[in-house]
């Protein structure tokens, strides 16, 4: 399936958001959005992916 992950086109095997995080090696404190909508951690496994989805995975960073 072709998705856009953090702005980059990717071809992935995962069919849900939780699986995508595992496949792409994300762990620890991250938050996710799908097509610009927040997806809480508890709903990632139930969140299926479809072709063309835009996924954002963010983590703590320096800020002012």
């Amino acid at each position: 399936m072709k998705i856009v992950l953090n702005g980059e086109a990717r071809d992935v095997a995962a069919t849900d958001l939780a699986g995508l995080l595992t496949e792409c090696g994300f762990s620890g404190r991250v938050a996710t959005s799908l097509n610009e909508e927040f997806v809480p951690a508890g709903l990632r496994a139930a969140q299926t992916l479809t072709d063309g989805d835009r996924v954002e995975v963010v983590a703590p960073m320096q800020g002012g």
Partner: protein
Amino acid sequence: MGKSFYGVELPNPLMLGTAQYPSPAILEEAFRASGAGVATVSLRREGAGGAGQTFWQMIADLDVLVLPNTAGCHTVKEAVTTAHMAREVFDTKWIKLELIGHTDSLQPDVFQLVEAARILSEDGFEVFPYTTEDLIVGERLLEAGCEVLMPWGAPIGSGRGLNNTYALRAMRAEFPDVPLVVDAGIGLPSHAAAAMELGFDAVLLNTAVAKAGDPVAMAKGMMAAVEAGQMGFEADPIEARDMAEASTPVIGKAFLS
């Protein structure tokens, strides 16, 4: 005694940003040496190497209060979504709400700010709005559920100090019971002290420390400044006057001429 920030009393009046330091070690030392009690942080795309996790561990080890921001957001939707992500990642209801309206000055878009503040407050967030010194906007933010106001001193990163002390003083007078924080624009310890002398409850700064030649020394200087300014305000300072008034008693002066 300081005012409560959503039920939390700050250990001291210095909120320090975590961006732009020469190295993580210097960032860490700036916090430890100054004793700043609040760290602002943000969310950015996580890389494959998990840089965010390393950063988070360092912040967690500092044992400070964490205030995530919505820096860089230009729309209500973007800011609200970012706030939700921050609440989950940082496990806090606190959010420094930034809604940028102008590219060059990074001036807050106060119209969207009020709207986003209302949405987030209704959703249980404890909003720290980065705003202008406008009194009516301040009122609207309080009506929207904010219990803290954070007017700018000057544009972010400009180091200009307090551009409008008249308006900041008016804000203090208008909202005597609301915790007020000067957020952004501080360049020197004297700016931070001046904010506290106006009766503000805290100062939030980042660039002035992070980009100083010696960030650790500047962080300590900023802490000394906010504490000095706070003590000055609480000590009920004298009014300025135009002409001299002798401090040494005239009575009893020896006749020598």
